[in-house]
C-alpha cells in the first residue's frame, strides 16, 4: 500500500514536470502565455491529479476532446 502510494507520487512528480512545460499549453490555450510563477503554482496539483490530466492531454493531442470543459 505504501509502495503503491510512493509509486503514484513518483509518477506524479515526473508527469507534472512535463505537464507544466507542455501539457498545460495543450489542454488550455490561456496557459501558453502563462508565467513561470503560474507553472510553479500548478505543479502540486498536476502531480496529484496526473491520471485525470494525462487523459485530458492525450485527448487534446488526438483532437477527440474539447480543450476546456
Amino acid at each position, binding site marked *: 500500500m*505504501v509502495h503503491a502510494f510512493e509509486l503514484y507520487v513518483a509518477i506524479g512528480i515526473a508527469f507534472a514536470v512535463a505537464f507544466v512545460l507542455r501539457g498545460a499549453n495543450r489542454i488550455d490555450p490561456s496557459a501558453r502565455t*502563462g*508565467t513561470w510563477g*503560474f507553472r510553479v503554482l*500548478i505543479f502540486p496539483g498536476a502531480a496529484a491529479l496526473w491520471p485525470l490530466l494525462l487523459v485530458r492531454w492525450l485527448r487534446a493531442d488526438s483532437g477527440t476532446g474539447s480543450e476546456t*470543459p
Partner: protein
Amino acid sequence: MSVGYQAVGWNRQKKLYDRTLALGVGLYLALFLAISAAVNPNATAETLVIRAFGTGALLLLHVVLAIGPLCRLDRRFLPLLYNRRHLGVTMFGLALVHGLFSLVQFHAFGDTHPLVSLFTANSRYDSLAWFPFQPLGFVALVILFLMAATSHDFWLANLGAPVWKALHMLVYVAYSLVVAHVVLGSLQAETCPLLTGLVGAGLVAIVALHLVAGWRERALDAEHAGDATDGFVDVCAVDDIEPERAKIVTLGGERVAVFRYDDKVSAVGNACRHQNGPLGEGRIIDGCITCPWHGYQYRPEDGCSPPPFTEKVPTYDVRVTRGRVLVRSEAHAPGTPVAPAQVHAMGSRDA
C-alpha cells in the same frame, strides 16, 4: 480573468491583504510560542511548534469558513472574501508544518514506515474515547492539500466548475475531521478542557452563521410573483434600485441581477463565470458590472467581459413602464446584446 495565467494577479488590495495576513499569522505564532514556553517550561521546542501551527491552522480554518456566510449577512465583510484563497493556502501551510512535525516526532524514529505507523500505532478503532485521532488529521490534511493545490484559476477552468466546486466543498469534510482530530487528541492527551471548549464554541459559531445565512438566502430564492405580461414580470420600482447597484430577483428558477446605471436599466444572470460570485451584490464600475468577490467585469448591455477577456453571462429583456421595472423571465444566451431600458424617456420624466 482568462488571458495569460499569472501566479498571482497582484494589485494594491491583494498586497495589503497578504501583508496583513502574514503579519497576523507571524504575531499569532510568536505570541503562542512565547506564552506556551513561559507556561510550560518543560515542553520541547517540537511540541510547541506542533501546537502553535496546529492551533493557528485551526483558527484560520474557522475564519475561512465564516467569511462566506458573513458576507451574505453584511457587505462590509466583502473585503475579507476578496483574497480568501490566500487565507486557505496559508491555513494549509500551517497545517502542513503541524502535520510534518507530528509525523517526525511521533512516527519517524521506529522500525515501521512513518505512514504505516501513523495508521497502526494506535489500533483502538473500536473505541470512541480512544479512537486514533492522528489518521483523522492526516485525511483532513490530504483534503486541504488538494484544495490548496487546485486553488489557481487554471484548475477552475480545466476541472470544470461542478468538479472544482465539489472538490472545494470538501472543506466541510476536512473541518469535521479536524474537529474530531482536535477534540479526541485533546481529551486523550490533556486534562485541561480549554481547547475542547474553544473548538466546541467555534463549531457552534460556524454552524449558526451558515444556518442564518441560509435562511436569508431562502427568501431570495422565492420565485418573483409580480404580474406577467408578454412574458415580462414586474420585479420592482425603478427607485427600489440604488444608482450603480442592482436588485436580485428570481425568475424562471434563476437569480437575475437588475442593474440601474446612467438613467438605464439592464438585467443579467446573477452568477459570475469565475466562481459563481453574486454579481447583483456588486456595482457598476467604469461602466461595467463588477463582481464583489474578485472583480470580474461584464458589460451590462451584453453580459460580455470587456476585451481581451472572454467571459459571458446571460442577458434578459427589460422594460421600464410608469416607474416599474419589467424583466422577461426567459434568459438570452450568454453574451447576447440587449438594449437597456431607459428610465426617463427623452423629454419626459417617466417612460
